[in-house]
């Protein structure tokens, strides 16, 4: 990497477009939002304007976000829903990644394709598809009803009562798990595939059971993949609003929905900006935790 000093022109040609993109489409807009978060609605001709914003460097937006328990409760709930969805992702994705990593080379690309395939379909369509699965007259209820009737339970307990699967926290968590699963499977697959098989064999050879081998060797050695997966799922979960919007009920709102509403329906950009930055600080906290955890992995026995 020393050669960029010698070939400055090549360096700038290669690094230029990316740096330009980051600066103008990420850092500067982020700065604008940050400045906006210290603004308030402009007063024009003695009336509070609906559309104009004035930067007064007030902290009122942050005070409002932190003082009104409604927002803290929603942030807290968003964190919990994200934690739950991320944990479920990990629990489901680990065996999946394991199977793919240990599959024969002939099968592996197809299994990976099956994991990545949903990416090729628009998120909105995928989420709507979940509505068809979870609604009262959806596929889950159809299946349950069929099992119920086949077992003649309808003759014992009366007709099948469809489950209310949609428009609640369950639907939001299920939707998040479904949408973000590939982000968990792929880093896990990468780290499990790199795992030296003789480590697992050595553990078995030394008398450890399959479970002990998993907990004491496989999981610690694939910890980088686990942490990457957790971060890759947790952060977009926390900021997501589409899933909660479509699958959640009125009381299943996440912080992403509130922010979206501030920018659109309420037209209160400064408050929306303040909430956005609070969410970002939570994300920074998660990343700091990651750094702490991965340093831990280095020294733990």
């Amino acid at each position, binding site marked *: 990497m020393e050669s960029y000093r010698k070939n400055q022109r090549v360096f700038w040609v290669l690094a230029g477009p990316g740096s330009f993109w980051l600066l103008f489409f990420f850092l500067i807009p982020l700065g604008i939002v940050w400045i906006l978060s210290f603004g308030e609605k402009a007063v024009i001709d003695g009336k509070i304007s609906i559309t104009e914003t004035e930067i007064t460097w007030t902290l009122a937006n942050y005070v409002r976000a932190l003082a009104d328990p409604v927002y803290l409760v929603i942030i807290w709930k968003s964190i919990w829903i994200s934690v739950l969805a991320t944990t479920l992702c990990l629990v489901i994705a680990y065996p999946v990644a394991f199977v793919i990593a240990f599959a024969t080379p002939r099968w592996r690309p197809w299994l990976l394709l099956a994991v990545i395939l949903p990416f090729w379909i628009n998120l909105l369509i995928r989420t709507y598809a979940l509505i068809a699965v979870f609604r009262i007259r959806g596929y889950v209820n159809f299946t349950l009803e069929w099992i119920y009737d086949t077992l003649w339970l309808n003759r014992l307990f009366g007709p099948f009562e469809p489950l209310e699967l949609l428009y609640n926290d369950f639907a939001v968590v299920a939707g998040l798990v479904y949408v973000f699963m590939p982000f968990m499977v792929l880093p896990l697959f990468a780290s499990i595939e790199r795992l*030296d098989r*003789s480590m697992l*064999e050595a553990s078995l*050879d*030394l008398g450890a059971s399959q479970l002990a081998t998993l907990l004491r060797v496989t999981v610690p050695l694939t910890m980088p993949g686990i942490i990457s997966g957790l971060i890759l799922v947790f952060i977009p979960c926390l900021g997501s609003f589409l899933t909660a919007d479509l699958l959640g009920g009125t009381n299943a709102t996440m912080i992403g929905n509130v922010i979206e509403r501030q920018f659109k329906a309420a037209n209160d950009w400064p408050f929306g900006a303040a909430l956005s930055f609070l969410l970002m600080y939570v994300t920074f906290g998660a990343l700091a935790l990651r750094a702490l955890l991965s340093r831990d992995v280095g020294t733990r026995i």
Partner: protein
Amino acid sequence: MSIISIRNVTKKFVGITAVDNANIEIAANEFFAVLGPSGCGKTTLLRMLAGFETPTAGEILIDGVDVSTTAPNKRPVNMVFQSYAVFPHMTVLANVGYGLKVTGVPAAETRQRAEEALEMVQLAHLGERKPDQLSGGQRQRVALARALVKRPKVLLLDEPMSALDAKLREQMQLELTRLQEEVGITFVIVTHDQDEALSMADRIAVMQSGRVEQIATPELLYESPNSRFVADFIGKVNLLDGQVTGASDQGVTVDVAHLGKVTVPHSDHAQGPVSLAVRPEKIRMTVSRPDSGLFIQGRIVDWAYYGDTSHIRVQPASGLPMSVTVQNDTRSTIDNGDVGDQVWLSWQAEDTLVLDR
């Protein structure tokens, strides 16, 4: 009684037979080597002993118990892996104690036994280190201690020296022999390095394409190989093709080009086309025609000087060139010939082997 009995064991993978009807008996406290070229099935055989592969046919007994289908964690054997497979996320001491900890040995005893095992491989001072702070040789000692601390009935070693440099390899060979005598455990080592097998093992099984070719002590394997493959694989050998013309109490008479009809001691039945085999160091090279033994005339085509010995290739009037090893036992030996010189090669009939072609 044998500690390991491998009876009619065959292992087939899709499309190939890795091990073909192997029969091996290994005695308790023996240092046993399985030797063969890459892909001969020796590692598969070892993995079946460890339990990572299940025989397609036949049975494996360890200490009289059929373990053919026993899981690896239920067998009284431990293995030193080719890659060492030292756990990178544990300290050296935790690595060595791992096998005891997971099987419910109390923490205090685990620590004590792990420390003793580290002392045995002279790594007691490195217990708190992480594997990535160790050299290759040290990592191997950790793998060794980790396996021995379990007090297995058999220690399996899969190409343990392949990643070490020549000097360290020699040192570890001596150390392994010392350790084996010290702990009194049966060692089964798999290697493709004949020097390693010859110098360490009590007995050696030579494998080729899944079959066990010969099981013998190093001396017998070298001096009395039972096939062309073994003769050629262990050390160097000159092979002279000929036809058996008769047999008597003295041995068999073979007609060989440039040698004429020679009679060499041979106890087994032999007829038709055979090869006479003679080791390079058994051959004497002289300028004048020798007056006894078997001899052949040729021209020196190549002279490789190794300090203690010289390896010389001599081309007879026809056929393959013959290899001769000359001890440089005086400082002037080197003056005894040069490339292009006509010389006589001679050796004794009793140093000659008759091998089927």
